[in-house]
């Protein structure tokens, strides 16, 4: 690794500074994150663990620009995303972040190929041929080339999650955020999914942050971050 790459690898891709986030639950204010500070280096493969309600999903949603903090800074690639407009955040999500959801969130009427192609269709600069090539490559990476015409409801849970992973990596993101990606899967499939994510993390040097409450998966990650009552306990 030369100096430049080393500097680049050392640099944080995500940095949260004193982030607060609270919700109203009826008439009660729930502090989901209480002055949380945290950073994520390029190429890291990190599991975020914690009990239900600890603030894992809230943290992921804030990093993914799906929600706005009450206060604090969230820097992605040195850009404070809390200051971005809605359209700028959309653009950032499309170009830099890939999402994997617990319940896959595939579009049921679209086949596997079309589901994976979805995030690329808003890239006006990309030709149809380029898009198709990228989709084929992503499906190959997750081992689903032969299922490209299948509808999601014809696939198993593990296959659906692999489609979701292909959809997340097809845009060549710098960061993949996965919210409980194995929660709906049996343990064998869950291990396969985590291994696949790790493989892609190594192959594409993409930073992965996923949250899980499954302690058994923690042995397969490089770094584990524990969150409790809205505070990081590494």
């Amino acid at each position, binding site marked *: 690794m030369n100096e430049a790459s080393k500097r680049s690898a050392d640099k944080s891709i995500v940095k949260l500074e004193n982030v607060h986030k609270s919700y109203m639950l009826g008439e009660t204010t729930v502090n989901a994150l209480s002055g949380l500070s945290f950073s994520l280096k390029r190429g890291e493969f990190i599991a975020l663990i914690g009990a239900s309600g600890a603030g894992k999903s809230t943290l992921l949603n804030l990093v993914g620009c799906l929600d706005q903090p009450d206060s604090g800074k969230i820097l992605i690639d040195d850009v404070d995303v809390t200051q971005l407009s809605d359209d700028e955040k959309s*653009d950032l999500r499309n170009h830099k972040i890939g*999402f994997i959801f617990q319940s896959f969130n595939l*579009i049921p009427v*679209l086949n596997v190929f079309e589901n994976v192609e979805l995030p690329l*269709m*808003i890239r006006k600069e990309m030709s149809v041929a380029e898009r198709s090539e990228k989709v084929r490559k992503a499906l190959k990476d997750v081992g689903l080339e032969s299922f490209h015409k299948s509808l999601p409801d014809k696939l198993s849970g593990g296959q659906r999650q692999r489609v979701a992973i292909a959809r997340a990596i097809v845009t060549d993101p710098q960061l993949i955020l996965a919210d409980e990606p194995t929660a709906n899967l049996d343990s064998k499939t869950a291990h396969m999914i985590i291994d696949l994510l790790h493989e892609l993390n190594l192959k594409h040097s993409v930073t992965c942050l996923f949250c899980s409450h499954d302690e058994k998966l923690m042995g397969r990650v490089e770094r584990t971050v524990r969150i409790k009552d809205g505070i990081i306990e590494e």
Partner: protein
Amino acid sequence: MIDLSWRIAAKNILRNKRRSLATMIATTVGFAGLVLLSGYIDCVDSILKTNTIYIKQNGHLSFYKKNAVENFFSRPALYALMSEDQDHVYAALKPWKNDIEFTASVITGMGLISSGEKSVPFMATGIDPEADHVIKKHAAVRKWTPELASDNGGADFKSVVSFDPSGISITKSLGEMIGHVPPFNKLTDEQRSVQLAAKNFFGDLNAVNANIRLSHTTGMAFLDNLSVQAPISVIQDLLSTDGITAISVFLKDEAVLAEMLKDLKQSFKKNNWQIDVYAYNDEAVGSFYLETMGFLFVMGGSFTLLILGAVALSVVNSMTMGIIERTKEIGTLRALGFTPRAVTGLFAKEALLLTIVSTAAGAALSLVVAAFVDHLDLRVFPPGTAGSVKLWLRPNVEICGYLTLLFLAISYGTSFLTVYRKTKIKIIDLLIDAGA
């Protein structure tokens, strides 16, 4: 290859077939109804326009002595177009000679027609027999008002004056009022003979003998009890004048009308010629046409608004149900980087696709209904016209095009407004939605 966004739209339409079909039926029937209604209004417009221009012999343009439209009947001598005025009109028309199909002189007068037994008032139109011949055979008249021109077994004033310069035409109802039952070709010479009496241009009572040779209809209910048509020379004799009321100009193509009207007005003003010129749709000479069409347009407009409202509600309903069921998908799209506008665009494409298919089906349905009505050969009584005419429901391609654009705009607008608001909801709230 079809763009992915259109494929998504098509697949989403098929996602809930029953709802899509209901929206499509509402749009199809609404579109077909509007096309047929506009076809009917278009047909009535053509009938009334043909009647105003050709049957009434107003022409596309009519020339009167200044202020004659208001004053001719009270002071005809002062407001008639005399030969010098007629020369001015023809001089002004010279630059437009290539656009003119033919011209006709017209004189009008009022008086009493007497069969010896009964006398009733009449309103006479003295017409040029040559122009009458051209009008009766004119393509527009043959197409739109054949019923108004097909009496008398093909005979017209041109053929009548060749053997009877005093031959006149009266309406059937006027004939009945003076004791003659149509058809008039069965009348004896004695029955045929009538006397026309009127106050002439000099204020004296005058009368001429005439023979009923033809029957006609004015095409207008309120005139059919009064109308007499005669060669222009008969009415000039009756009114003791060589003047006329108006010159009518019939154009080859109506497209030049506005420009020609403007030019002629300027020409009369520049030369200080005391002539008024009117287009057939000017209130001064075509009030019946204008008022009738005005009424039909208001009626058509009201129906259009009602149907568009129903279509808009149908699209809103379909879209609202769609976004309730697909809230989580909207959240997913937003998470993948779709802007609110891009998500709305996907839904709007669904509405547009549904509308395109529905309007095409509506156009096809209107053609089928029009062909069926044509086959039934139904007769209708257009407002204010005398007698019936064939019901024409000819879908007009241009109107179909405008209606399609209107439907597309409505469906795009309503779907955009319905969906856009939803896309502005916080993404995490969209993502946790359990759906319908």
